[in-house]
């Protein structure tokens, strides 16, 4: 759907992307927006919209609407926080595209920033924050299910049990991500990773081992969205938004929602492809939200690249690795690239669509699928992006 969307991504900026100490998230966000403007060949006076995404742990004082003031942006016609956990970045781009299409704004920056890493402090201390929660949902912490790994482990365990897939499938994803990352100078983890290394690493939450889990970084990514007409005159090859869709399943506490076997992606996929003339067979590159390796397996199935329970076979023997049948997460994804939530797949999609991927560039990357996953597969948002050659 969304055939009448008139919007392209025209600028990409990053800041930080390191495990070392950095300025706070708000400053990283400011630097990323300025970087994206410079990349697009725009000035800050060209911006009339600013959409801000942050982690669910952050507050207005960490990153809030006052980012406008730090950027010295005047008379904005659009300023919002867009909060949908891991799906926030693409959700923000959806809002930007709608605003640009309707004329509510002409040129909108979408930014995500996070700075959870304190050098010397354990990763689980950054992400497995001690919470008590409230209500019945909070009993997850009473049960000892802390951190994202526990959530995704519960989904992965069901998937393996129901489909007969093995931990080899998870290993294939982790190893493929590292292969891509070795080709990406911006990736955090670029040392080769073998299957033996994968299986020798400790479990975090079974069946997930160390290399199934993203590692936090400090950093920010911003993109600039404007109309296709304006996009044509700017500094970079424009990346048109061909379609966009979200899918949010709702209450997970009753039977009937098949944890690990379906997600919001299954709802979003038909909405995304509808009316575009594009299907899974036409996708040249996939950029999935892969905070945990398992997410990639489920994404492949939910978007129809393979049937239910077949993702393990799909990723075996380098199916999604460099030279494989379907390039997935060509920057190394969250697992080996960097974990800046929903902006990680967006940034890599822009790089690939422009043909700026260097050693990891996929030839003929004309139609790209980009996804965001939030919560425990609670929230899902997706983009279908084209390349400059796509302009009608």
């Amino acid at each position, binding site marked *: 759907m969304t055939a009448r969307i008139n919007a392209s991504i025209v600028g990409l900026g990053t800041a930080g992307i390191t495990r070392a100490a950095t300025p706070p998230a708000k400053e990283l966000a400011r630097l990323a927006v300025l970087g994206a403007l410079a990349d697009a060949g725009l000035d800050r006076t060209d911006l009339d919209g600013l959409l801000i995404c942050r982690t669910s742990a952050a507050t207005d004082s960490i990153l809030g609407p006052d980012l406008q003031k730090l950027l010295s942006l005047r008379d904005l016609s659009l300023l919002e926080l867009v909060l949908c956990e891991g799906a926030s970045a693409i959700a923000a781009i959806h809002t930007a595209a709608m605003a640009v299409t309707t004329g509510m704004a002409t040129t909108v920056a979408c930014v995500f920033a996070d700075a959870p890493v304190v050098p010397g402090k354990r990763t689980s201390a950054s992400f497995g924050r001690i919470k*008590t*929660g409230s209500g019945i949902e*909070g009993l997850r*912490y009473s049960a*000892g*299910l*802390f951190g994202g790994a526990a959530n995704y482990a*519960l989904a992965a365990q069901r998937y393996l049990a129901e489909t007969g897939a093995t931990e080899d499938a998870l290993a294939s994803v982790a190893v493929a991500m590292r292969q891509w990352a070795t080709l990406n100078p911006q990736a955090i983890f670029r040392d080769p990773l073998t299957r033996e290394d994968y299986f020798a690493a400790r479990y975090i939450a*079974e*069946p997930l081992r160390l290399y199934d889990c993203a590692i936090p970084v400090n950093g920010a990514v911003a993109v600039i969205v404007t109309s296709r007409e304006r996009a044509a005159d700017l500094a970079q090859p424009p990346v048109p938004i061909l379609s966009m869709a979200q899918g949010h399943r709702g209450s997970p506490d009753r039977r009937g929602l098949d944890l690990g076997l379906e997600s919001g992606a299954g709802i979003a996929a038909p909405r995304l492809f509808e009316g575009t003339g594009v299907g899974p067979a036409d996708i040249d590159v996939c950029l999935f939200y892969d905070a945990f390796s398992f997410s990639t397996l489920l994404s492949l199935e939910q978007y129809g690249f393979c049937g239910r329970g077949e993702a393990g076979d799909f990723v075996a023997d380098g199916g999604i690795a460099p030279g494989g049948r379907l390039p997935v997460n060509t920057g190394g994804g969250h697992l080996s690239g960097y974990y800046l939530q929903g902006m990680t797949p967006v940034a890599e999609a822009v790089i690939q669509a422009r043909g700026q991927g260097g050693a990891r560039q996929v030839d003929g990357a004309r139609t790209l699928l980009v996804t965001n996953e939030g919560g425990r597969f609670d929230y899902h948002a997706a983009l279908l992006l084209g390349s400059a050659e796509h302009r009608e």
Partner: protein
Amino acid sequence: MSVEPPPIPEPDINSVPFFEGLAEGRLLVQICGRCGTAQLGHPDCDACGHAALEWQPASGRGTIYSFTRMHLSYHPAFADLVPYFAGIVALEEGPLLYGRFVVAEGTKVAIGQPVVAEIVHFEGAGAFPIFTTVTESQA
């Protein structure tokens, strides 16, 4: 032995009777007065929208819906338990509930494995169910 209790949530507006029940040693579920769907912590029926839900005792029996074995301790209460099993129980009545699993001799943790709830009280902190695996004949 003084050990810090595990985190126990505060009731929210839709779960006060549930936590009161736990304090009294009872596991309760909400039953819809119209369609009979059992659920947990909803303001109105998650299946049909009916406003009248009644808290009723659950059997305490269920099966493992999914599980993990946690290998890291994020909280002092779990430091001596690592690695421990925890996951989601499908209660006999239908709703899904998070819990830690205690593995009884002669049983294992697996999807579909029967479990029974034991409500454990932590002095000054509250109470919540911990689930013990049981054999089919005990279920």
